[in-house]
């Protein structure tokens, strides 16, 4: 397989939630949780999706897996259309894209033994049954660093970190090629986070897995990912190789995020800038560039025109009028 053929290709993904309130004269509100997201993940590549909570990154990730039905857009996995697939075709695609969840306490069925949770996917996808499935499940547990005697135990007997390992093992039972990890370590104790991250990176190298790593933690993304996409209010505002984007962000929002995140270099600590304003609501996003009310470099055009995500070379792209020669010149 050529390294350039995309594994997952997302174009123009949108997810709007419609809410009706009041009786008899109801008011309809449309919440634009995801507004035009395009993203490409190549085999074996780890892409980070970062942003503040409420920016739509988790919704976007779920819409790509069709865990929620997107409002519009196209999602292709190895060239196959994910959004129109039904029945067995969808089941086959799903097998190749798995998810690791944020909350290890709710991601396992409390009434199901670990063994059953690991063998059920194998049975559903006709991978293995009976003793063979059990042996595979035990091997799977071993791969994530848990003993085989965990098979007959229930989730409440395990710690958060152990449960997260079990969740990862369950995702691996169906031999996926892409893992969507939604804040996989943010619910864990700091001491456990590193172990789970190490496990994920080890699995990535050993199995050649591609990752979509959804996180609000830039340092984790910097350590784990090859590329990063920064989301703000339903849109990707900047994208590029992780080291470059986080060293020298172009978009004012990406810059703000970087400055606000804990700085590993002690010499530069204490320079946290103040964050101007609050995150606007996705129900009533600002006109033009959604970030303009909080942006210190905002121009007239920013309030009117939505800046498109434009490539700048070097694999980087930014959606900001400051980097648009035409707009900058007109100013």
């Amino acid at each position, binding site marked *: 397989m050529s390294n350039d053929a995309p594994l997952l290709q997302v174009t123009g993904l949108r997810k709007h939630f419609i809410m009706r309130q009041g009786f008899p004269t109801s008011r309809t509100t449309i919440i634009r949780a995801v507004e035009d997201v395009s993203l490409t993940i190549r085999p074996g590549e780890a892409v980070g999706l970062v942003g503040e909570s409420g920016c739509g990154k988790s919704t976007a990730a*779920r819409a790509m*897996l069709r*865990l929620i039905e997107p409002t519009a857009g196209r999602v292709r996995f190895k060239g196959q259309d994910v959004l129109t697939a039904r029945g067995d075709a*969808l*089941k086959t695609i*799903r*097998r190749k*894209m*798995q*998810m690791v*969840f*944020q*909350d290890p306490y*709710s*991601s*396992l*069925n*409390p*009434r*199901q033994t670990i063994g059953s949770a690991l063998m*059920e*996917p194998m049975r*559903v*996808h006709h991978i293995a049954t009976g003793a063979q499935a059990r042996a595979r499940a035990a091997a799977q547990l071993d791969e994530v660093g848990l003993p085989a005697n965990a098979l007959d135990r229930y989730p*409440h007997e395990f710690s958060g970190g152990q449960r997260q390992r079990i*969740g990862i093992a*369950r*995702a691996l039972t*169906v031999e996926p090629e892409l893992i969507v990890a939604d804040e996989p370590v943010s619910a864990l104790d700091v001491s456990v986070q590193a172990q789970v991250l190490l496990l994920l990176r080890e699995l990535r190298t050993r199995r050649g897995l591609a990752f979509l790593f959804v996180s609000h933690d830039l340092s984790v993304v910097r350590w784990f990912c090859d590329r990063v996409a920064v989301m703000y209010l339903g849109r990707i505002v900047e994208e590029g190789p992780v080291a470059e984007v986080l060293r020298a962000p172009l978009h004012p929002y990406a810059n703000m995020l970087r400055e606000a995140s804990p700085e590993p270099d002690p010499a530069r600590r204490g320079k946290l800038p103040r964050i101007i304003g609050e995150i606007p609501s996705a129900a009533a996003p600002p006109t033009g560039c959604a970030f303009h009310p909080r942006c210190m470099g905002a121009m007239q055009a920013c309030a009117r025109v939505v800046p498109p995500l434009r490539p700048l070379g070097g694999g980087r792209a930014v959606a900001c009028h400051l980097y648009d020669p035409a707009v900058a010149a007109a100013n």
Partner: protein
Amino acid sequence: MGALARARQNPTTTAGAVITLLIVAAAVLAPFLAPYDPTEQDIMSRLQGPSAEFWLGTDQFGRDILSRLMFGAQISLTVSLGAIACAIVIGGVIGMVSGYVGGRFDLIVMQMMDVLLSFPSLILGLIVVALLGPDLINLVIAIALTAIAPFARIARAPTLVLKERAFVEAGHALGYSHTRILFRHILPNILSELLVMGSLWMATAVRTEASLSFIGLGVKPPTPTWGGMTRDGFENILDAPWLAIFPGVAILLLVLGLNMVGDGLRDATDPKLRHE
């Protein structure tokens, strides 16, 4: 500590369980333990008071009350157990599917359940039995009908919560069918609530069956039913008050026992009291 262990520590629950189990044992062992044939008439010993020969006396046909009570327990328990089992299955599936599907479908289904719930249950049971004809199966149907709506509500509420849990989402991601997610993953998590509610509703079902029999819509004579026996006793209340008292007390004890067990189980499984 498990819910059962907690329930066992409660003296009321224990007492209720003992009462209920004694009645169940009397019903099951009736063919072996009952001193007389419950339908055998004996003109020579009509309307006799309690004695060494007939512990609880005899009725207007000279039939032994104790034996009839023991066999009558079979009817009470069979009808109410059957009805509640049906109500749990039908109501449980309606509530689970409604909550799981959600949206407008859920709205309409639950509106229908509310309508069913607002019916006076005895009147509903009475008319259904009257139209279908009084026999064991129709009694089960009628009483089940009065209990479907509550079980639908009981099943729906936790389903609404569970379907948002990550393990259900994981199921979707793993390609599980909706049926599998509903019955393999959601159902086991709501089953205990349904069963606790079932024990409380058993009490109501026993009472409804007895009431219908008392009105004359029970399983047909000569099969003994507690409600029917109370009715017979009531008609002879001036000559032989015990005829009405003993079956009345039997009904009361069974309903009370079931209520005590149900209460204890509910308290023991109440999430507000649970620390796990």
